[in-house]
């Protein structure tokens, strides 16, 4: 696919670029960036009108729910949500039904992504069979089938000896392990962060130490084995500090943080809103500040949404019984522009880095850069667009967000995958009249 995006402010943190210019994609790959480029015959042209042109955003932590829980989300709807939210690629977690612990499931996900998906889909395979934490999954076959990392996300691998073997064994395939860091015994029964707010609300708490302990263990095992460990959804000051120290010592660890852990605190549970319940839970103000700092200084490499779609029936129940998780694909970019860039936590280029080159490096993915020859994935941002988050208009099947009704400034304007436009000004490929 050939596409010329003219008249943009091209920001490509991987190559230290922030300058006005045009971007030419040919044969689905980045061909050139320059001033006043000519469109070769047969090239579609888009005028960016001075908007920010960036490498296609990559979300390395989503739940697409297919196969098995299509009532929550499908690969078709989840990738449409991604395109709407400015993401050109997503990595999907293994906690489907059946679990993505065999080639057949990976094959199915990739086949669905090819036929019905509209952004790139990178499957993450299970570390253990059935996510049960007892036996290793066939990591070699999963890698051959196309899994780009391994994770039992949603459940921690509590057995340290088993995780150690998984890390050693994974070296043969050059794939990292993504850790859901939570000491299950400490978090058992908990529905929110443990602290004054949980005491006040009479809800069972999950102490920050439940995350800290497992991050400390994971750092030790990454150091022991030399295999990269990526810590999913870092939510505590202590976890960020452990990662910073480990990185300074050269231990192969990386980390991600979600928009909700960067914006909301445990105070969001005050109205017992099930849409504010997730794992890890929303933490204290001090933790939020520490996560912001760690994202700014590069301790945390990526922003990932942990897009966790749920049906109303999973959420419209007592908080104790509500499912964990929030959707994020369609709100992340606007929320980050509003709460991180406008509030001065990150500059725009750093935010883009944490959505492009950062996540690409964590999982060893192509893309995340506009260097010639890289995949022709592009996200264009309209920094001035003011709007209100309206869950009813999501492309996702799910509506479970605590951000509904919030006013935000800034939005994705164009999403391009391999030179093909999949979202333009809020309209998504496949919409009627597209």
């Amino acid at each position, binding site marked *: 696919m050939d596409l010329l995006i003219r008249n943009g402010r091209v920001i490509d943190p991987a190559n230290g670029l922030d300058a006005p210019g045009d971007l030419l994609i040919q044969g689905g790959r980045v061909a050139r960036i320059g001033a006043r480029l000519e469109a070769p015959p047969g090239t579609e042209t888009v005028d960016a009108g001075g908007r920010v042109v960036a490498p296609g955003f990559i979300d390395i932590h989503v739940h697409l729910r297919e196969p098995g829980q299509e009532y929550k989300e499908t690969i078709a709807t989840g990738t449409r949500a991604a395109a709407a939210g400015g993401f050109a690629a997503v990595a999907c977690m293994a906690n489907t039904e059946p679990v993505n612990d065999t080639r057949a499931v990976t094959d199915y996900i990739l086949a669905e992504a090819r036929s019905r998906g509209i952004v790139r889909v990178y499957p993450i395979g299970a570390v253990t069979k059935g996510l049960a934490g007892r036996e290793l999954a066939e990591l070699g076959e999963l890698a051959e089938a196309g899994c780009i990392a391994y994770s039992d996300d949603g459940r921690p691998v509590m057995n340290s000896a088993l995780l150690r073997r998984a890390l050693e064994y994974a070296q043969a395939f050059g794939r990292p392990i993504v850790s859901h860091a939570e000491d299950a015994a400490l978090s058992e029964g908990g529905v929110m962060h443990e602290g004054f707010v*949980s*005491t006040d609300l*009479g809800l069972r708490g999950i102490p920050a130490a439940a995350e800290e302990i497992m991050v400390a263990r994971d750092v030790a095992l990454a150091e022991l084995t030399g295999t990269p460990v990526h810590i999913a959804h870092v939510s505590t000051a202590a976890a960020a500090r452990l990662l910073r120290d480990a990185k300074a010592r050269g231990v192969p660890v990386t980390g991600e943080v979600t928009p909700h852990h960067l914006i909301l605190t445990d105070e969001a549970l005050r109205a017992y809103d099930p849409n504010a319940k997730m794992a890890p839970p929303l933490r204290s103000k001090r933790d939020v500040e520490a996560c912001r700092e760690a994202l700014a200084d590069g301790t945390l490499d990526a922003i990932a949404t942990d897009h966790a779609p749920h049906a109303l*029936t999973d959420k419209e129940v007592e908080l104790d019984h509500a499912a964990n998780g929030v959707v994020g694909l369609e709100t992340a970019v606007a929320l980050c522009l509003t709460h991180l860039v406008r509030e001065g936590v990150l500059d725009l280029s750093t935010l883009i880095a944490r959505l492009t080159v950062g996540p690409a490096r964590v999982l060893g993915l192509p893309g995340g850069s506009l260097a010639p020859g890289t995949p022709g994935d592009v996200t264009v941002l309209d920094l001035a667009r003011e709007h209100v988050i309206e869950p009813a208009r999501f492309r996702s099947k799910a509506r479970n967000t605590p951000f509904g009704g919030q006013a935000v400034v800034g939005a994705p304007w164009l999403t391009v995958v391999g030179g093909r436009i999949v979202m333009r000004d809020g309209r998504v490929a496949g919409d009627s009249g597209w």
Partner: protein
Amino acid sequence: MGLTRKDLLEIRSLEPGEIQTILDTAASMKEIASREIKKVPALRGKTVVNLFLEPSTRTRTSFEIAGKWLSADVVNVSGSSSSVVKGETLVDTARNIEAMSPDCVVIRHAASGAAHMLARVLRCSVVNAGDGMHEHPTQALLDLLTIREKRGHLEGLSVAIVGDIAHSRVARSNIAGMRKMGMSVTVAGPPTLIPPGVEELGVKVARRMEDALRDVDVIMMLRLQQERMTANYIPSLREYSRLYGLSLEKLRGARDDVLIMHPGPVNRGIEMAPEVADGPYSVILEQVANGVAVRMAILYLLIGAQGGEG
């Protein structure tokens, strides 16, 4: 004068003046209990649904009697929170009950926030009869009424609350109510059962139970759920009883006229020695009697003729 609110969900959002109104109304309701014919027509034609999704005998009975003495039609619906979760959701149950046009739903539920959830869905009044570990507002109100009767006032009094503070909705409601009424509160119990940040509720934490009991006007003992032992909050009932049970010996350090309260049912011999529960300063049975009066007051103020519905 009524309450200008639809629901009674928690003590913490009540104004001190509202608490005063409820206590005054309850005090005037007490006279009905002494009549030959215990019935007034205040809520004739009103329907109260007791939706009890967690086992409870005394609170449900207390609400039922309160409604009946006021001539309301009282319907009891019971079940377990877990079975409601499996099939029909709480919201479904609530909407079905609403379709039958009740004036008030009284809910007891094992999950914190369940009463709030119901109140958001229902147009009729909702009274929280205990939600998880969050609040049990009518219990706190009957406790305040009992203390006020015995002491003549509330402001300036000191209270020790002893036991499983962490899991107690009674403690949370009482702490909120007592602080609002100008009382000082000290809590004591095994450190495993003192919740984090409890001082931010405006209470003192005593390391030893004996320190909490010294010079207070009121000692409130909480019920210990026996499953706390299996989760290793305490090593044994024996040790709990020895360290945190209210014995005659521990009472020796307290004031001579101290009031002893318990929300019931008492685990005799565990949190309280039988001779203390039945002793001269125990007001446990007055608490039960005042429970009916407080619940009459709440129903009357919320859905009575001059109630502030809507």
